[in-house]
């Protein structure tokens, strides 16, 4: 028995089905493996439930101190110094401003790049272009943060606007924009290629130029794919951490001046965990409150993107 069991579990073919015990073992093995694989699949479900549980459960002490309404509408964020105040709006404003700036950089460049790749580029550029752009997405975000702090702010922004602060939202927005270009160009490229050739040819047949085919046929036909790409890029920009921590600084304030220092939700979470706050204090629980807000925002955007994407898939397949 003890000699057969390992063989059977290893899936060795000596566990042939000609003996009753072996058939039984083989069935047991199949069931066992089925169970193990199911457990693997359930890890992902457990992760989601774990995230939600931890964020909600650990932010309860914070919401005993401050009501969720005051948390979401308060305009002063100062949980670390007296008088304390827990209004998350400045963090949301900082996040929103940097994410919007990032899209301002990424959408035109990403969209034009993918239009070029799918409509204009010769075959070899088309083949090589996408993997090359994906290198941009593969570079660690801490490297972009370094680049913003050491190159973009002193060598670019300060040359143009001398009043720029060392930590500023603009440099963060630029590098976050650069890093989400591949998200946009890659998904848009897929969307453009999914537009049937016949649509383009019909337009050419009534003597449309390439520009007209690209902007009036291909782009509208792929619009939902483009929208999904932009939404996913937005979610990435909102959740981006290290580049923002290094480039934008740690000052939570309601400002719309991109040349000033500002703090995002992610940067605040990092700031608290750098300080080694003891567990159980309100500061510790603010991590989870802000994390919950961040998670909720990105979840809604991601779900929206998937909805849009599903609709787009139904059109031509």
């Amino acid at each position: 028995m003890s000699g057969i069991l390992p063989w059977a579990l290893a899936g060795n073919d000596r566990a042939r089905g000609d003996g009753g015990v072996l058939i039984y073992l083989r069935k047991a093995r199949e069931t066992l493996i089925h169970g193990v694989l199911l457990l693997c699949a359930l890890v992902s479900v457990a992760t989601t439930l774990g995230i939600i549980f931890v964020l909600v459960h650990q932010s309860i002490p914070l919401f005993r101190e401050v009501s969720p309404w005051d948390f979401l509408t308060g305009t002063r964020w100062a949980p670390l110094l007296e008088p304390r105040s827990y209004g998350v709006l400045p963090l949301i404003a900082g996040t929103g401003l940097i994410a919007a700036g990032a899209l301002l950089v990424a959408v035109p460049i990403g969209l034009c790049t993918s239009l070029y790749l799918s409509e204009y580029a010769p075959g070899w550029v088309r083949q090589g272009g996408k993997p090359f752009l994906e290198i941009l997405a593969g570079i660690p975000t801490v490297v972009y943060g370094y680049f913003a702090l050491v190159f973009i702010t002193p060598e670019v922004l300060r040359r143009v606007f001398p009043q720029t602060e060392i930590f500023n939202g603009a440099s963060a927005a630029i590098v976050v924009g650069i890093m989400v270009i591949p998200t946009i160009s890659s998904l848009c490229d897929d969307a453009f290629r999914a537009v049937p050739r016949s649509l383009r040819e019909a337009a050419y047949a009534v003597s449309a130029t390439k520009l007209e085919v690209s902007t009036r046929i291909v782009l509208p036909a792929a619009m939902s794919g483009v929208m999904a790409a932009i939404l996913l890029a937005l979610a990435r920009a909102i959740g981006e951490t290290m580049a923002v921590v290094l480039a934008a600084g740690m000052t939570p304030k309601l400002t719309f001046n991109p040349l000033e220092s500002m703090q995002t939700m992610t940067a605040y979470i990092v700031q608290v965990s750098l300080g080694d706050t003891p567990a159980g204090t309100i500061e510790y629980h603010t991590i989870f409150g802000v994390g919950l807000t961040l998670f909720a925002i990105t979840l809604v955007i991601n779900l929206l993107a998937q909805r849009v994407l599903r609709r787009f898939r139904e059109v031509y397949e």
Partner: protein
Amino acid sequence: MSVAATLFRPRLGRRRWLGIVFQALCLVAGLVAVAILVLLLVHVAGQGWPLVSWRFLTSPPSQLDPENAGIWAALLGTVWLMALTALIAVPTGIGAAIYLEEYARRGRFMQVIHLNIANLAGVPSIVYGILGLAVFVRWLLGSRSLLAGALTMSLLILPVIIIAAREALRAVPKSIREAAYAVGATRWQTVRHHVLPAALPGIMTGIILALSRAIGETAPLIMLGALTFVRFAPGQWTGEYSFTPAGLWAWLTRSLDSQFTALPIQIYNWASQPDDVFRRLAAAAILVLLVVLLSMNALAAGIRAWQQRHRMW
């Protein structure tokens, strides 16, 4: 003359000209992306290359003596972290993918899991850090250890591995499975001996890309408290251990439970200091990290190319 003929003016010259302008604009946009990448690489190489040396790779970090600081602790920390993460995430990810592609019946439950994995892939990495802090550091393990870091990283890259492995499994033609079933193979035998080998190159590519994402992740590790100044690398072999099973076990558990630092953490640490010396150290460390990353990407691309030439179907 019809109405259309009087209203429609082709203006072909203008339209062609506009077309050329637009094409140039799109090309320029693409080139901007390329130019930024080149600029970044040139800048980092220019700043960091003079500092990269054997001594830089094998010295411990030092706050007091930046001239002689190195990345030994960070490098070893990253190697340990990646090895453990791969050990945890790869079997789990492949197992989950096999279940979802080969075992599960299509239905509502599957739709939920599918949506769930797609969403997990979009959860900001710092949220995984928060999860790791609450669950692994505070609750299960009670320490800011290497194991906590590896578990958190595993959860982070799991959706990436599952998605890649599922795609690779889906690409294996149905006929291969049916042939195996036809000669009496069980479901697991079919998967183990026929589907998995056929999908392996695709899965490998996915794993390498997932690990290359994990290797540069900084935020979750900072959440776990990996920024504390660590001079010594985990896994230091000292005289107190012996080459017996018990000795090796003691060494392994001590290593898993030790505090650690990692390359991206070291980069952040140096980059956030205002002194120029430290920033050049950061550039040198970035250079090392990028070389590792680009070789991983090249390996993945190589496997992909090999697979396309040696397709089994």
